[in-house]
């Protein structure tokens, strides 16, 4: 019985040591210390072994498992996205429970990679002259290539057993692509299960359906999807990419490469409408113009009229913001009708893997500025993809929001460890400390004032065989629009979504 009595204390001690190691785990000089800690972990785990028998007692002491509520669409029109996110959460929770964490801390390790042409030799100081201020350019440029750092494994020992010594329990429910069910299940997770953290939401309609409930109970809520931006909510942390990160870079590239005339075809709800508004506002900044905007209801699945409208309008390229399985029909139908315009998007390909689902060349010349896509060639991503398919060998694809859910669950674990508690207000404060997490995409920065994430953005393009390559890279684009709107959730709590209508920026440059 003595051992049992001691057990929680050992765990507590253990946790404290590991928190230290956590903070310094990016520092190579702490290797020996880490070794020591690892050894001591093993020792203390061994000591704690009898605790398994009395795990009820131990969890009663520490409040039972840490509950992460996860709500996504596992059936219905949006199941194709929800299933990926559900698997992402399962993978992350399994890793946390196995004592693993993604690297990160106050500042990321950085340096993911660059795209460009290579020099024949590394640049040298002062070659050919005594002038050491002169740096040669390494000789003639040879082939265009992707250069990226084969960085260290980002999944490291957390030194923790679950979160703060408590196992993590994932409560994953099915929203059935139905906003009413979303609201019911959110209430169940918050009031019934009393989850420590809620990770949920694919469409903006789903998010806006549950956000009032989240705010009613001040529930810590992580929204992991890419979306139109603008949510300034003290309880909500948005870890997906937003318009200033995705729309502006791709519109800029497309206008320069293919021409200024843009045809926008978008899903008719808040995401499509607001992303189209961003496109309209930023196109003039880079010399483009929107010649036509068409909003398509989510139920529409026959696109012959839209295809004829596009042909009548003769754009230089098409901005497609289509959502859901009905609307994906646009791609094969457009290809069969011989529509061969270049395309850009913020959602298609990276979310619904249309380039894998539809026969070639329906997605030929589709461009998307993504924060994640399965094809990213870096080592950290190859490792992540491997781990994923080891756990879920039958999965068809890993989309950008699945990766977001994956690192977000790890981010929550890191924040709870930093806070030293799962008490929700304390974890929210910890998430507002300017944390960086090393995600498969690269370093992700949780910007404290706006609760949005700075992302590594890459411009991906599919060719006629639907192979994906990368044209440009922005290692970190800050989410700046809410800062422009004066949002600082650390200083002043707000619970609203800003929309482009509130900002004169959106009409400043329009004709």
């Amino acid at each position, binding site marked *: 019985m003595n051992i049992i009595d001691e057990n929680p204390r050992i765990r507590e001690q253990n946790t404290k040591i590991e928190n230290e190691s956590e903070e310094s785990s990016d520092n190579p000089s702490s290797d020996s210390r880490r070794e020591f800690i690892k050894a001591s972990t093993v020792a203390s785990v061994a000591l704690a072994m009898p605790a398994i028998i009395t795990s009820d007692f131990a969890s009663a002491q520490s409040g039972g498992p840490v509950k992460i509520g996860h709500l996504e669409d596992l*059936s219905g*029109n949006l199941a194709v996205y929800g*299933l990926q996110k559900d698997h992402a959460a399962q993978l992350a929770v399994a890793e946390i429970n196995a004592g693993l964490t993604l690297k990160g801390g106050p500042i990321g390790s950085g340096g993911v990679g660059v795209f460009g042409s290579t020099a024949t030799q590394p640049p040298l100081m002062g070659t050919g002259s005594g002038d050491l201020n002169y740096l040669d350019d390494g000789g003639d440029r040879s082939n265009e290539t992707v250069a990226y750092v084969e960085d260290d494994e980002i999944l490291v020992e957390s030194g923790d057993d679950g979160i703060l010594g408590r196992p993590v329990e994932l409560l994953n429910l099915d929203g059935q692509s139905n906003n009413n069910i979303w609201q019911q299940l959110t209430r169940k997770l918050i009031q019934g299960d009393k989850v420590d953290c809620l990770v949920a939401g694919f469409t903006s309609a789903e998010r806006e359906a549950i956000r009032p409930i989240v705010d009613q109970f001040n529930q810590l809520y992580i929204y992991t999807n890419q979306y139109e931006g603008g949510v300034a909510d003290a309880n909500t942390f948005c870890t997906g990419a937003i318009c200033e990160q995705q729309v502006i870079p791709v519109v800029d590239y497309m206008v320069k490469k293919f021409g200024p005339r843009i045809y926008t075809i978008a899903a008719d709800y808040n995401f499509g409408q607001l992303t189209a508004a961003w496109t309209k506002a930023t196109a003039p900044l880079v010399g483009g113009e929107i010649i036509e905007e068409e909003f398509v209801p989510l139920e529409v699945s*026959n696109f012959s*009229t839209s295809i004829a409208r596009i042909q*009548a309008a003769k754009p230089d390229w098409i901005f497609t913001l289509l959502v859901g399985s009905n609307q994906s029909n646009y791609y*094969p139908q457009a290809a*069969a009708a*011989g529509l061969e315009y270049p395309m850009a998007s913020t959602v298609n390909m990276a979310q619904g893997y249309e380039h894998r689902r539809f*026969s070639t060349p329906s997605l030929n010349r589709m461009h998307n500025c993504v924060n994640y896509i399965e094809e990213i060639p870096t080592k950290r991503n190859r490792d992540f993809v491997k781990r994923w398919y080891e756990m879920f060998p039958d999965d068809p694809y890993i989309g950008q929001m699945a990766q977001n859910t994956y690192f977000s669950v790890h981010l929550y674990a890191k924040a709870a460890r930093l806070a030293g508690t799962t008490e929700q207000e304390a974890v929210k404060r910890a998430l507002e400390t300017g944390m960086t997490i090393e995600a498969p995409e690269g370093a992700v920065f949780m910007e404290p004032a706006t609760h949005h994430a700075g992302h590594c953005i890459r411009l991906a393009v599919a060719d006629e065989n639907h192979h994906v390559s990368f044209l440009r890279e922005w290692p970190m684009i800050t989410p700046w629009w809410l800062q422009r709107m004066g949002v600082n959730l650390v200083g002043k709590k707000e619970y609203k979504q800003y929309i482009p209508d509130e900002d004169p920026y959106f009409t400043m440059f329009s004709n």
Partner: protein
Amino acid sequence: MDLVPLLVSLLYQGLTIAAFLILCSIGLMIILGMMNIINLAHGEIMMIGAYVSTILVSSGLPFFATLPVCFIVGCLTGYLIEQLFIRHLYDRLLSALVVTWGLGLILAQGTLLIFGPFMPSIEIPFGSIQYGDFTFSVYQIFLVAVAFGTLLGLHILFHKTPIGLKTRATMQLPEVARTIGIDQHLMYSLTFSFGSGLAAFAGGVLAPTTTIAPFMGTQFVAPAFITVVVGGAHNIITGTLYSATALTAVKTPVGMFLGAFAGTVGLFVAALILIRLCPNGLSSIKVFRTR
């Protein structure tokens, strides 16, 4: 923009949308018109057809060879559903509605569990032709031929063959039909199987133009019901034909000049007005009556 290519494009769009409505609704229409059963699993039976053709194509069969298989699998599924559930629910319109709705859910969720959220799609055959500023998918034109061909085939079946006569007799006056020796239950089984077979065939033939997913049925159900309600069950063939034509005549120009959203609204407004003006459907209007 030249006027002639624009008109040709409008005609093409109109015909393809009408073909879509006809293919979506024909199986539903037969079951409703003949048996007065509202089959809410209609979309899922179309989904089964699409899955059958997709699976067979991916295992190497040519696409067009899969279509008869779709029809047969649809018939068998329909026969099974009729034998197990529907035959206990004749004259109980609402019970049948709830049961078929539940069946639809089970079929869709079961497909999700077995085949996952998506299947790779079938390549659309044939390619495209150009005229003026517009290009047209040859397969969509083929679908138009299939849709109107199906209607013609049904017309011949119901109006020129003995079995068609028996079916229409059962549909109009079941008691009298029984007295002259027509097996009403057999006719109902055959009708439900045949309607399901047509739905699965339509799902198969539409499969290349659509996403192959467990819940794909929902995209067909709304257009199918609107077409059926506007057309009315007075005469299956003319009902479907007039209804699809009338709805398309509104949707196409509105959609072309004002966008997809306005086109969808136009379709609903047209349906609303038509139902208000003739609550029993277009096929019940005297001038349209063919018999």
